[in-house]
């Protein structure tokens, strides 16, 4: 929801500058996968703070529950059993949810003015009251995050607790995490914090430990510390090089103004043709004699 204290960097389907007089701290959530024990307290905190109640699902033999993100489940833990080296099984648990891209594909694709806003602090938020339910954001998202509700046809996802952050609180999931796997602060601080964690992991034998802050989407405001940063796909298919699909960029990039201009030009061409060349008329008498 729109909050006075969150200045807006970008607004969907809006061609003019949204209000940006203030320059607040750029925030980030850091998810340290090496510290996560998969307790799902963050899922519960998310449900509680945002007042969400998903339907009770079915078990499929994994700990994934709910099995996928929904309009009621804005974050889910994804459990992957991976043999990174032969004989060495690792249980990688990734908290999935919106990555709050610096270059958000959802916002780029959205045709409804103000349905998606990006705050200057980095939060990408859906304003469902402006959402028209077209699902273009799903098409634009490189991480497969937004979900259309069957109840109201609007799209929902993690807000990074924009309502809490706006009044100086940390997101609910951060507040509840018992192991310190989730931390929240300025993006710069989070990168510094991650560097310390990565150095520690490298010392403990994770040579490829690293930060997941993908450049393809301009960096994200939700970042991961990965033990195996060279193979993010191990973590339930986290994309190695996420970026807005070229088809979406073409569709919502240059095509939009160019095609609109072309249609306007066609109308003008017709108007001026008529005014200069004049109508194409048949003279009755002349035709009869010819």
């Amino acid at each position, binding site marked *: 929801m729109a909050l006075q204290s969150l200045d807006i960097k970008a607004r969907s*389907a*809006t*061609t003019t500058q949204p209000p940006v007089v203030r320059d607040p701290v750029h925030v980030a959530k850091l998810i340290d996968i090496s510290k996560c024990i998969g307790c799902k307290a963050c899922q519960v905190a998310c449900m509680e703070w945002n007042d969400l109640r998903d339907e009770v699902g079915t078990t499929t033999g994994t700990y994934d529950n709910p099995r996928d993100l929904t309009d009621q489940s804005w974050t889910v833990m994804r459990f992957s059993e991976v043999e990174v080296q032969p004989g060495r099984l690792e249980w990688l648990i990734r908290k999935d949810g919106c990555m709050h891209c610096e270059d958000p594909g959802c916002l780029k*694709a959205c*045709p*409804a*003015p103000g349905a998606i806003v990006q705050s200057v602090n980095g939060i990408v938020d859906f304003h469902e009251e*402006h959402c*028209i*339910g*077209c*699902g*273009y954001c*799903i*098409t634009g998202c490189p991480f*497969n995050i937004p979900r*259309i509700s*069957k109840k109201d*046809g609007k799209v929902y996802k993690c807000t990074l607790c924009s309502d809490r952050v706006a009044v100086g609180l940390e997101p609910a999931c951060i507040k509840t995490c018992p192991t310190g796997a989730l931390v929240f602060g300025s993006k710069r601080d989070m990168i510094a914090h991650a560097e310390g964690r990565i150095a520690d992991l490298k010392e403990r034998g994770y040579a490829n430990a690293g930060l997941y802050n993908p450049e393809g989407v301009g960096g994200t405001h939700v970042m991961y510390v990965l033990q195996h940063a060279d193979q993010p796909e191990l973590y339930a298919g986290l994309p190695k090089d996420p970026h807005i*699909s070229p*088809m*979406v960029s*073409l*569709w919502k990039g240059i*095509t*939009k*103004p160019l*095609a*609109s201009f*072309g*249609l306007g030009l*066609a*109308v003008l061409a*017709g108007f001026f*043709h*008529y005014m200069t*060349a*004049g*109508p*194409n*008329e*048949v*003279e*009755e008498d002349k*035709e*009869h004699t010819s």
Partner: protein
Amino acid sequence: MSELVKRYTARERANHWFVALCFILLAISGLALFHPAFFFLSSLLGGGTWSRILHPFIGVLLAISFFGLAARLWTQNRISDADREWKKRLGDILCNKAGNLPEIGKYNIGQKYLFWTLVVCIAVLLLSGIVIWQPWFTPYFPIVLVRLAVLAHAVAAFLAILAIIIHIYSAIWVKGSIRAMTRGTVSAAWARHHHPAWYKEINKGS
């Protein structure tokens, strides 16, 4: 106006105008979602959400009625050698100074190009439209196909709207044409001048 020639039956006219009304509603709601500059048009269908809900249903109606009309006109739109000769004179025709043109039938090559452009575009719009029809069908298609479909839908819609702008302008420019679709008849002089081969053909039987 002396002599009149029948060009379209009442059924053909009704079919054409049904397609035309659907097309206008689709162009309004489609452009509204295409560029923010056109978003205000969504108000004409009751807002953004109503535009999103109604657009695909109107699209299905258009596709059915359009292909019904297209089936009637299919064989008359085959491009002939006379059409190609006629096309070479297009510059003169546009300047209203053409004489001694090749004799063309019921449709000239511009009309035929319009016909085939719309056949292709509407087929693409229908198929891609089903893929991006939320919330009913999109969840059943892979995301790569959905992304291809939104792009194809936008490109085909652009071409179709461009074709229709030319179509409408041609009807305004060539005097005596609009009554073919509003009244069903054109003057004999109009028919002799613009479609001489067609005029000869319909007079053969009488």
